[in-house]
């Protein structure tokens, strides 16, 4: 079943084309990762799916065009964790996570026992229970990233959009957060769309990679078909090599002090 259908999607800023046309079908429960150099249009696509920017073409989430859904209904099917979220530092972790229940609470209402139970369940699931009363300003980067996930998860939306979810984290926290996302995806059948700059991590977790260049998809498919030295060198203009381990794990590493080579140990 298709969760997200993108048909000739374009995004323009002040008349200038930033993305597209972009066409892709994202199956329910899958993980698609958008990669590409800075300014390739990755975030624009996420924002278009979330209904944050006007778009051309057609974006359908769970069978209904996003631009025909009200913002409230859209928030019930799409949750977005932005790359640079606004953090109200004095707000407690539980109050912040409760914001994710907004699409489910009547406009002038207050949260119900059920909403609080969902928040508590999400915090427990993300091992944030002991942090519930902590101020956001007192959290580490890894804790904060889990809190952002908690808020998105509390939305109970079937589609989770993550814009550079690991950009501010150390290696250990990067792995932890991405494993967590993968677990949540499998547990709840989430459809995950992320943007990522770390190509090794992107290849390790996503089912499908889409390489964007100047707003246009130039390569798409499983990580092994997209993460090739020739493709990456061509679009990233970087000196790198792609290594493939025995278990099929792909690592993209920069070369230091070497000239570009036409072939490495990997593809």
């Amino acid at each position: 079943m298709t969760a997200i259908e993108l048909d000739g999607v374009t995004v323009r800023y002040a008349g200038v084309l930033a993305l597209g046309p972009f066409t892709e079908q994202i199956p329910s429960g899958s993980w698609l990762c958008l990669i590409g150099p800075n300014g390739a249009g990755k975030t624009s696509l996420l924002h278009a799916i979330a209904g944050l920017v006007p778009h051309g073409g057609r974006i359908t989430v769970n069978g209904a065009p996003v631009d025909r859904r009200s913002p409230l209904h859209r928030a019930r099917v799409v949750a977005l964790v932005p790359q640079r979220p606004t953090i109200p530092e004095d707000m407690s972790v539980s109050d912040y996570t409760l914001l994710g229940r907004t699409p489910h609470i009547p406009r002038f209402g207050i949260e119900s026992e059920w909403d609080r139970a969902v928040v508590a369940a999400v915090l427990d699931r993300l091992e944030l229970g002991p942090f519930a009363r902590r101020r956001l300003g007192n959290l580490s980067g890894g804790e904060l990233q889990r809190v952002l996930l908690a808020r998105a998860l509390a939305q109970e939306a079937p589609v989770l959009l993550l814009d550079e979810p690991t950009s501010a984290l150390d290696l250990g926290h990067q792995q932890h957060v991405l494993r967590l996302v993968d677990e949540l995806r499998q547990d709840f059948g989430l459809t995950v769309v992320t943007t990522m700059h770390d190509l090794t991590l992107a290849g390790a977790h996503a089912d499908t990679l889409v390489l964007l260049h100047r707003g246009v998809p130039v390569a798409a498919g499983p990580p092994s078909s997209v993460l090739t030295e020739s493709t990456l060198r061509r679009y990233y203009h970087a000196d790198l090599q792609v290594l493939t381990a025995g278990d099929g794990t792909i690592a993209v590493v920069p070369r230091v002090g070497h000239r570009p080579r036409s072939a490495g140990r990997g593809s």
Partner: protein
Amino acid sequence: MTLTAPPLDRVPTEPASAPAEPVGARRWWMAAVLALVGAVAAGVVVGPAGLPWRGVILELVAWVPLVHIRSGLSPTEQAILWQIRMPRVVLGGLVGWMLGASGAGYQGAFRNPLADPYLLGAAAGAGLGATLMIAYAPGSTGWPVDPVPLAAFLGAIAAVAASYLVATTADRHATAATVLLAGIAVAAFFTALQTYVQQQHAGSLRQVYAWILGGLNTSGWHDVVLVLPYVTLSSAVLLAHRRLLDVLQVGDHEASTLGVDTARTRLVVVGAATLGTAAVVAVSGLIGFVGIIVPHTIRLAAGSSYRRVLPLSMLAGATFLIVADLIARTVASPSEIPIGVITAFFGAPFFIVVLRRRMRS
């Protein structure tokens, strides 16, 4: 996705449940209510007439339906209690309640803890309206209503409406920053006009200055009846939006991904806060500091969620102004100190103490 089954199943121990209010917040609720009751009691007991406190309390208890007791107060003392002190205390409470609520509303709507109810020109507009009326219609006889409060009310509404109009012509989304900048410009313009009118009518300077400093010394039940509908309506709207004010704290962009129409929410909150503020400043003058210090102190004490900050600011604002008025009318008795002087004189050091304690913790 639905979390109905999976996450609750995966919770390792007891079913997840979050308490409705942190224990600390519950304590602040009780403290706020008790402080208000204490302030009201002190407000009606203390004064130059020297009413017996026992008689005053019995008189208040006797007011409760189906309770029949004699307070022992003389008719004169009863008149002082019911016609002078009680309306003044109630009006002070309403003004403080509204300024506290409006301050919290403005701070939430603009994500700025330094915002106050006068941010978008309400004070400047009210000041201009009152000054125009004092300067050009002195004496104000023959009017069906007192023209000075009416002009102040309309001036405050006009200034904030002008701020929003200017902001929407510059930016159709009326983002917080645009509205703030427009408010600063409009306030400066209205203040300039007010200063000009004041200079042109130097004879009215003392009266204008007295109004600007604020006070409750001419109040009666009439003023209470005048502002009560506005305060009730405004408070109801603000309370209904207290959860949405929390959502606005993540910024317009993220709030919209949570399904909130940020521009509409901000407009309604600012509209309600302005209506209430305009009504109370019309009868009390420009009492400063309450709208900024009270919500901020509450935030430092009881947490930042507007689900708590807004209602607690109402209670604490009422308490603060009743106590400030009590001090204003007793420390230099029989003359009165302008209440605005008291709110700043005691409010500023108190705020500094709270801030230092918070920073140390």
